[in-house]
């Protein structure tokens, strides 16, 4: 045996990862064919076009503003990139924990004669790619709009790549280093719990703070004493020591036609220095951290709380259904990665209600009545969309999460209908409570009439039942049994199809109700008595039929699909 061993290339260490990705793509293509690809590309293309369109309009407007235009555009880009860097740091910290400490390939890599530097670089690449691909895709239409409006030319493309790449690497290194330190302090599984709470708490805090300072007030010209103050604010860098600011400066200087090499140099040298320091830190701390990561977090649970409370309430049910519901509730509340998302949900609900409260509707004029009812009506669609997002996160993955235990469920005499029933109601009941609270509170804030209150509460009930069923049905149609992280399941193809179907359902319901609500509002506005005519009844009947069908059909299809599952 020789003292030195030939080291595998970094490419070789990363090979299983990209081969897995290639194989998954191939399998997805074989399963779904061109139809699936077309839907994905269309949805992605539409999203890109939407972002591009909005940015294009804003930048076109800025371009027309003398002197201030480029400053405003630069500020906007700075804020967008700053938001992206913050998101990247959070997602890199969470991803680094999985890829550096909990991944299944670590036993193989750590026991093989692969040196620390290759291991670090391979895992860093993995972390950066996993956490940044979505942000990278989002940046494309944004920078495209900047490039087109400010006529960046063909050279803008390579320049933008050159600028954005180090901006993606830096949060990766910081995330990996933070995780390394945390794992050395806490056991890995505890760290994961802590991180998910901290990350979501931080994200929620940022959203809440941003909304509560009411940024729309800043847009009012009377807020500034004079133009000079306004320009001073715009010229002040948002965060001079952050890579987002350097990237903004580099891009804006290119677009102005006077390339400033300093920000680009700062980006690349800092990235190189950070990777070096990160690697050294990895050499010093990884071995102890990895050892600590193997230590399980001991957790004794004697809790009989759910059995006493929910268990007693469910006494009339069969024992199989009751045990299934109890099991689902326990699993949800014992998994920090699951329940911690409720923090974000609570924040979003507060922001939603706050937005409705902030609407300047009640000024006493008669027009108020019309708009109040219009907002209340459109609020149904918005609330429906919020509920759909929640269902995508919590109900859609329900079937996929049973995947590894399906041997038990399928070999037992459990009727799959009972399984479907339990999953449906465990998801629907909380969603229904939320839906009623959301619609009820916003209606009270809007001071709507009792007619609108009844219509919107009844509609949101029907919609919630349908949205839950769609989420569960599509979750069974497009299961992700191999995914360990529940948070990744809604971003799959099936999740996309579910969201698209739900948006179509919301559109159909609003369209069907439109005539009925319009007749009512018109009558009140004109001071005539409200007559419930055939059109109104027809509208309500269509809504009931559409929601009924959207509840029953997906559940039946989902059940049929589950009966055909093979493991």
């Amino acid at each position, binding site marked *: 045996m020789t003292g030195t061993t030939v080291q595998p290339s970094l490419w070789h260490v990363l090979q299983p990862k990209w081969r897995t990705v290639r194989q998954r793509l191939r399998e997805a293509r074989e399963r779904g064919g061109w139809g699936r690809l077309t839907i994905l590309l269309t949805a992605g293309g539409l999203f890109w076009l939407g972002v591009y369109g909005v940015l294009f309009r804003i930048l076109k407007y800025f371009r027309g503003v003398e002197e201030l235009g480029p400053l405003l555009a630069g500020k906007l880009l700075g804020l967008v990139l700053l938001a992206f860097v913050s998101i990247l740091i959070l997602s890199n910290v969470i991803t680094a924990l999985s890829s550096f400490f909990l991944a299944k390939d670590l036993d193989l890599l750590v026991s093989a004669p692969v040196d620390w530097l290759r291991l670090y670089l391979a895992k860093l690449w993995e972390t950066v790619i996993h956490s940044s691909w979505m942000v990278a895709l989002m940046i494309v239409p944004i920078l495209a709009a900047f490039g087109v409006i400010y006529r960046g030319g063909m050279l803008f493309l390579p320049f933008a790549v050159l600028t954005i790449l180090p901006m993606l690497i830096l949060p990766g290194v910081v995330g990996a280093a933070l995780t390394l330190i945390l794992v050395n302090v806490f056991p890995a599984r505890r760290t994961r719990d802590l991180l998910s709470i901290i990350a979501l708490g931080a994200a929620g805090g940022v959203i809440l703070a941003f909304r509560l300072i009411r940024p729309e007030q800043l847009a009012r010209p009377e807020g500034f004493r004079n133009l000079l103050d306004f320009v001073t604010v715009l010229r002040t860098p948002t965060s001079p020591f952050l890579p987002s600011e350097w990237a903004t400066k580099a891009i804006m200087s290119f677009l102005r036609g006077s390339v400033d090499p300093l920000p680009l140099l700062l980006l690349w040298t800092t990235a190189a220095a950070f990777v070096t320091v990160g690697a050294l830190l990895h050499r010093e701390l990884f071995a102890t951290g990895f050892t600590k990561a193997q230590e399980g977090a001991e957790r004794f649970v004697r809790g009989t709380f759910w059995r006493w409370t929910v268990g007693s309430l469910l006494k009339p049910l069969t*024992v199989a259904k009751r045990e299934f519901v109890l099991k689902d509730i326990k699993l949800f509340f014992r998994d920090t990665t699951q329940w911690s998302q409720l923090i974000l949900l609570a924040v979003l609900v507060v922001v939603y209600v706050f937005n409705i409260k902030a609407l300047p509707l009640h000024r006493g004029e008669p027009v108020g009545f019309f708009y109040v009812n219009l907002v209340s009506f459109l609020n149904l669609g918005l609330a429906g969309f919020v509920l759909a997002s929640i269902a995508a996160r919590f109900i859609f993955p329900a079937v996929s999460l049973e995947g590894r235990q399906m041997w038990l469920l399928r070999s*037992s005499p459990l009727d799959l209908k009972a399984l479907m029933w339990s999953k449906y109601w465990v998801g629907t009941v909380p969603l229904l409570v939320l839906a009623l609270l959301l619609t009820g509170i916003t209606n009270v804030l809007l001071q709507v009439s009792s007619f609108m209150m009844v219509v919107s509460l009844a509609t949101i009930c029907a919609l919630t039942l349908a949205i839950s069923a769609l989420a569960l049905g599509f979750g069974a149609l497009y299961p992700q049994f191999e995914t360990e992280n529940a948070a990744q399941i809604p971003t799959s193809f099936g999740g996309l199809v579910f969201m698209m179907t739900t948006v179509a359902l919301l559109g159909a319901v609003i369209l069907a109700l439109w005539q009925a609500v319009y007749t009512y509002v018109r009558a009140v506005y004109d001071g005539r008595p409200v007559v419930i005519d055939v059109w109104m009844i027809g509208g309500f009947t269509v809504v009931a039929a559409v929601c009924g069908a959207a509840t029953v059909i997906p559940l039946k299809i989902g059940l049929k699909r589950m009966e055909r599952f093979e493991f």
Partner: protein
Amino acid sequence: MIRLENLTKHYGSFVAVDDISMEVPRGLLHGFLGPNGAGKTTTLRMIAGILRPTDGRVLIGGDDVHQQPLAAKMRLGFIPDRPFVYDKLTGAEFLRFVAGLYGQEGDAIERRIAELLEVFELTSWKDELVEAYSHGMRQKLIISSALIHRPEVIVVDEPMVGLDPKAARLLKDIFRQFVGKGGTVLMSTHTLEVAEAMCDRIAIIQHGKIVAEGTVPDLRRQHQAGDVSLEELFLKLTGGAHARELAEVLGR
């Protein structure tokens, strides 16, 4: 008690199980042997109702597993080779949950849970989340869950993997007692000494087909194998030349 009729399973163009027919009578411990990829696990998972056969049927106590699944599965306890269980339940909660799937609850089940945990030395772990269990402890928990509803038939895939010698011995005793009381066990294993010592009858499957079936003396007779061990017989039937080649490669 277990009857396979022309059981066939295709994965695309690949034939994993090819027209198998077999009968396991009540009160018998039946071994199911074969090399890796021969179709053992696929067959057992079809018997447990987890996989649907492409053709043929499985009867347990006269009930078709796919036509009358609930009746057939009430009689069955299945122990898979990979112990995936809910990580965020405690051992006792998991057993209570499984009992619930069979419609059983109450004091009798609580006593049964305590009894099984005691037998498998998991009592001190009963209030700990399964995520903290070792592979062997998970395997013991799954074995307990397969016994909780007092099944008539146990279908078990590689039961000894991950078990310590004491637990392995305990499991052998449990299976023998179970069979002694009229129960039926169909067991796949790679441990040929275990199969030879424990099984009343043995079936050997290769390339999805049953190539031999009977008691060990029957198999020796059928294949004119003299007084050789089950291991020698197995290698003869499933291509022992490979093993010798492997020995040569390792010896180089």
